[in-house]
């Protein structure tokens, strides 16, 4: 089936063709669900949030002004819905803990990562992501996984550009530090 751009489907939905919303849901459901998972850390809550996001996006489609792209607008709704959900449960970890980073030997870490098989790499990164605060997990997903530029991340999260950059810098250091820690433990276990 021919893939059309978002505006085509949005136009059709606005003309009353409800079913035209389904391709948009299909296209963005995984990233919306990932953002919801990043923040709620729970599949059931994430599914509920993700469904609410698409429902809200559908109902508010007339308010989408095309000042930002459709996915950016959608991710902003997802981010806000998920934050609202966990604020209700009062489990938001707002700030990165102040950590003192040790000097990280880049090459060493990269060699060790390369020595892991695919499954082990997935386990390692999952373990590290689990330790990050919710907002940082979203930043990492958008920046590294979805290659979102910083200015669009600001639109999604409502954070200032300097704040996003500082957070990404600290997260980068923290991921490397955690990687080094995990890899060190593995080496000790193997020996």
């Amino acid at each position, binding site marked *: 089936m021919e893939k059309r751009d978002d505006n085509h489907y949005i136009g059709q939905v606005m003309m009353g063709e409800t079913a035209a919303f389904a391709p948009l849901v299909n296209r963005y459901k995984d990233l919306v669900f990932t953002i919801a998972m990043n923040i709620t850390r729970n*599949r059931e809550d994430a599914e509920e949030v993700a469904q609410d996001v698409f429902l809200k996006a559908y109902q508010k489609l007339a308010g989408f002004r095309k000042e930002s792209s459709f996915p950016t607008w959608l991710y902003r709704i997802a981010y806000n819905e998920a934050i609202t959900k966990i604020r209700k449960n009062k489990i938001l970890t707002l700030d990165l803990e102040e950590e003192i980073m040790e000097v990280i030997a880049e090459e060493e870490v990269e060699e060790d990562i390369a020595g892991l098989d695919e499954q082990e790499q997935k386990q390692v990164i999952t373990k590290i992501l689990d330790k990050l605060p919710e907002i940082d997990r979203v930043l990492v997903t958008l920046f590294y996984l979805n290659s979102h530029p910083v200015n669009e991340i600001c639109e999604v999260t409502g954070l200032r550009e300097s704040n996003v950059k500082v957070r990404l810098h600290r997260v980068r250091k923290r991921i490397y530090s955690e990687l080094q820690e995990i890899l060190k433990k593995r080496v000790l276990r193997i020996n």
Partner: protein
Amino acid sequence: MENQNKRDESIRKLLRQKGLEKAPDNFTEKVMSRIKVNPVIDDTPLLSTGTWIAIILGLAAMIVVIFMVDIPFFDRVFSSEGIQKVSMNLFSNGLVETMSSFFKELNLSSITWMIMAAVLGLVLIDRLLRKRFTQAGLLVV
């Protein structure tokens, strides 16, 4: 900078290995069935026409009152007598006497009253806008 790019690349590689979380089975069908229950697109603007008219009328009224109407109160606001000092010698007596004399001696300048009214107005507008934007899912309060 080179180190940072290297790190970015390694992290990106690792994350791509993990990939996105997969939405549950039948996710699209579930969303579409919820939409079918209520397929109405809400096209009411965040700020209704009435709210806009109220804001514009309020601003116009302020401009008219401040700059065009000759009211002695506003003449005093911008005169040197308009700025009066507040007596701070309130706490040398007992608490009850202090409280009653506080309100007796409270002699705020007209500019202070205006600032307080402006702050109150801003707080009300802020609450109104936050409520509207939160309902639209565009703001987390």
